[in-house]
């Protein structure tokens, strides 16, 4: 299978790999996917409580190259956005940016889910 240059770039140099303290009130954690499906993404955001701006994002992903690239890209995109803006990110945007083939669309769906799960976790803590 041929990968787009952008997928290869994110795979080779993944952005924002890491882990934040999931106990912190400012941190929202999303863990989506399942090992038996071959994809698990963990995406974390740290939100400024004054401005609701996502000031930092980290990820770790178990999955194929497209899954790694989708989550790496997601962390880049959410940084600097407000929580509401980040919720506007659609999986189709990720598909377009990374030129994902049809069999890899589920990777982008999972990345969108990871963003939503992280935000929902943060909202729950700060509800």
């Amino acid at each position, binding site marked *: 299978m041929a990968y787009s240059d952008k997928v290869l770039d994110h795979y080779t140099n993944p952005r924002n*790999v890491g882990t934040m303290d999931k106990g912190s009130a400012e941190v929202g954690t999303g*863990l*989506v996917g399942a090992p*038996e*499906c071959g994809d*698990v993404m*963990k995406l974390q955001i740290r939100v400024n409580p004054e401005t609701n701006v996502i000031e930092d994002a980290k990820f*770790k992903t*178990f999955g194929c190259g497209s899954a790694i690239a989708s989550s790496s890209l997601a962390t880049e995109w959410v940084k600097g956005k407000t929580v509401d803006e980040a919720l506007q990110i659609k999986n189709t945007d990720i598909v377009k940016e990374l030129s994902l083939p049809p069999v890899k669309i*589920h990777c982008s769906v999972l990345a969108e889910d990871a963003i939503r799960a992280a935000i929902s976790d943060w909202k729950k803590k700060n509800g």
Partner: protein
Amino acid sequence: MANEAAAGVKLPIYMDNHATTRTDPRVLEAMLPYFSEIYGNAASRNHEFGWVAEQAVDTAREQIAKLIGATAKEIVITSGATESNNLALKGVAEMYHEKGNHIITQLTEHKCVLDTSKRLEKLGYKVTFLTPQKDGLISLDDLKAAMTDQTILVSIMTANNEIGVIQPIREIGKLCHEKGILFHTDAAQAAGKIPLDVIADNVDLMSLSAHKVYGPKGVGALYVRRRNPRVQLVSQMDGGGHERGMRSGTLNVPGIVGMGKAFELAGQEMAEESKRMLALRESLREQICGQLDEVYINGNMEHRLPGSLNISFAYVEGESLLMGINDIAVSSGSACTSATLEPSYVLKALGAGDELAHSSIRFGLGRFNTQAEVDYVANKVVDVVRRLRELSPLYEMHKDGVDLTKVKWQAEPAAH
């Protein structure tokens, strides 16, 4: 590829010899005249061109037969092991349908045996798909228990293409013969790698392939026993009645010559070559397993083809691993690398769990691999697995002492 020269290897490295092998230069040399000056049809009985071609085919048939302890008249030439397996199963089912309608096989067979069996089921035959044990070996007790007075055929492969596990075909054949059941074995992966003897091994039908043994693609054979018992088949390809009526179609003379030469070489070099393969395989295994935690060998290590190694790297997904080692040709059981988007059905049948199936890599060592290549592959795999584990939330959870089997996973995302 800056370290290519330093490592003393030429990239990319081919280590996927279960998929296919490079044609041995000696085989190619033997084949070449049959593409040009010796071009007759082996079925042309009335002129010199045909006689020469037929002579070449006869010689090849002897060479093929010799490797498995058969006689030349028992070798039916086909286009490959897929066709041989189709012919064996369908041909026996059709010929012996009045005797019984039951066939026994196993879940880890090659797709061409499984799908042929499923087609026969649709035609009204009953097929038992045995589940192998966790190490990939079939249980003889299970096999015995599955046999009925309606059973006409047992089809169990000699060695598996994904995990290299060698089945106890001699004992299986003995069980079959005690019950008057025919025994077919797909030996595409095993022939030329381990000693085979159709008489001692109690085999009635054996599928063979040339390109798995350094011969050309597109040619194979089916051994069909002629004595004790005499096996009959209904041909599945109608036409000019070639191959004693069992497989019509003009013979692929260059391919057959190549298969003969490849089988002859395999017979001559097997003892030494298998030792060398085993040493390389063990070196690869020790280097990888010695440097990484949480790696699992799939399949029995004792009853295994010498050049075969299948490893699951827990917490790392197979396709992403292949991406990282893209200067090495190997295969993965990951769903992402298969056409069906399902993880390896062979590893699933072993009860490995889908997550380990997704994380598996098959290494297939062959005649042309070197120790320098093994060292390069081992180092590269170790590096990439370490890097991907740094990225893996599962490895992190494992290290934190989380029991991943107890986590409530949010399975497939909802459709958007």
